[in-house]
């Protein structure tokens, strides 16, 4: 279980994350929404160690990870994918996966053996198949389509076998059809891999369709949490963010 306790971070006078406390039970799927500048990405950066929180705790199964370095936090089981696909542009898909497994198995500093190590294959292969990247294994990452680069980014997080997977806008920059394909993939991963998934998403149709639980951030604070129905009818959320269209659709 991932528990966030009173997490806070300021940039100058701006409170990007302001006293946020949240629980993500094991195996849950949660969407984080909010207007631009609501502190969604900062929230992810604080959990994953990209930023150090000013105060508060990030507890994974009771262990406080707040303020630790990204490699340490990854090793504890929190993986993440990025808003702009963060990949290794000159490596092939297969090399990327194998090297990531090497890193996870702590063999990334091995000098006397040849890459790839035999014990890294099965996991790499498994995740490539899971994300339909196996047929593109010999493609250099830079030559992949935008959607496949996003999949590769998620594959990089997933191949480390995390307990918690944080996806920062998995559908960013995609066309409508591609979006649905991607989000179906995310849902499929969540169902089959039995991991805790938290994702940031802008498309409300997607969020309301697939997320059993939604967190709304606004100006660094939690505006509301709840099921899609609760969020749709929450007056504070409607005022701040949704406008009347979705409220009307719900009614």
């Amino acid at each position: 279980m991932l528990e966030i306790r009173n997490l806070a971070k300021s940039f100058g006078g701006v409170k990007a994350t302001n006293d946020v406390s949240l629980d993500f039970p094991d195996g849950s799927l949660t969407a984080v929404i909010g207007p631009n500048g609501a502190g969604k990405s900062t929230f992810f950066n604080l959990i994953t160690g990209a930023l150090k929180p000013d105060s508060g705790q990030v507890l994974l199964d009771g262990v406080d990870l707040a303020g630790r370095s990204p490699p340490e936090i990854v090793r504890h089981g929190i993986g993440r994918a990025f808003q702009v696909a963060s990949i290794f542009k000159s490596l092939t898909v297969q090399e990327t996966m194998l090297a990531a497994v090497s890193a996870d198995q702590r063999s990334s500093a091995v000098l006397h053996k040849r890459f790839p190590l035999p014990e890294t294959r099965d996991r790499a292969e498994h995740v490539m198949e899971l994300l339909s990247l196996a047929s593109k294994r010999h493609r250099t990452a830079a030559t992949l389509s935008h959607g496949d680069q996003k999949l590769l980014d998620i594959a990089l997080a997933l191949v480390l076998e995390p307990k918690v997977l944080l996806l920062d806008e998995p559908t960013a920059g995609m066309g409508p059809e591609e979006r649905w394909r991607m989000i179906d993939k995310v849902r499929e991963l969540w169902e089959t891999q039995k991991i805790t998934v938290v994702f940031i998403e802008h498309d409300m149709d997607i969020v309301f369709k697939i997320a059993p639980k939604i967190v709304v951030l606004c100006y660094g604070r939690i505006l509301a949490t709840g099921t899609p129905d609760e969020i749709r009818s929450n007056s504070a959320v409607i005022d701040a963010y949704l406008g009347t269209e979705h409220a009307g659709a719900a009614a």
Partner: protein
Amino acid sequence: MTELEAGRAQALLPVRSGAALQRYRDVLIALIAFAVLASLPMFTGSEALLDFVIRCSAYGLFATSLNLLVGYTGLTSFGHGMFFGLGAYSFGLIMQKLGVPIPVAFVATLAITAVIAAVIGAICVRLKDIYFAFVTLAFQMLIHSTILSWASFTGGDQGLRGGIPRPVFLGIDLANHVHLYVASCALLILGLLAMRQIAQSPFGYTLRMIRDNAARASFLGIDVWRAKLTVFVLAALFASMGGMVMALFVSGAYPEFAYWTISGEGIFINMLGGVSTFLGPMVGTVLLLLLNDTVTRFTEYHGIVLGVVILFFALGLRKGLLDFVAEWYTHRRDAGEGR
């Protein structure tokens, strides 16, 4: 076995034997190259040619080790030559002052290089891009001026004079020109083989990840600082080896070996030969030394000619020679497959 598993096993098999095969292939190529180089004195009496190969060994080890930093890790060091000079001076001084057997001096020099590279690297690899380049350059100048000003120990601007004693060990007499030649070739081939192993190891792929995207590498649990420091020290060791070959060749060590121009030449060599292939710097070494030797014979303005050639590679081809060949080859292969 399900169909999926069967397909997976099939996909895996060629890759599994591929890694082992690659290793045997590399060793085989190294053995052939060594056999060809070592038999050269039997076919030619040209001392100039053997000298040329010895210089290629010294510069080749140095330039290829620089490529571990520049090409594989994305660390553009402008001060890598300090380890070339350090190797030459440490080796020369140990031989002159302590009179130990050559292999002992060789290992001791590597140990000294490792310690100094670890200290300098610990400071430098925290910095990125141009700051890394500047600070490595600063350390290079520090070592160079130490050599110049500590004249009682290093001979100052005169260098290590009086020759480096080269006692016979294991029947090898490095004062003998052919013995020195074969030993240089052996060091070059062994050094290249070791660096090739580093480049193709899991660590080598860690370096590529850091070059492409260091932030992402750290989100995979990789300690980027430690990996950079490790490769900095490893590269320094091979540069130091190159310096030792040079010291044996000229039977001395001179401040120019530790001057920033050595680092500059290393960068030139990498630009000429290319950084995207393992042997690019080796090709660059041969090119640069050939150019140096031929151009200086015709004109005293060889710097201008060299500059024009490098501009041609940098602006014309936009890559090194072997990069160009490798790209042309892949292009042709892909076209052949009808893509």
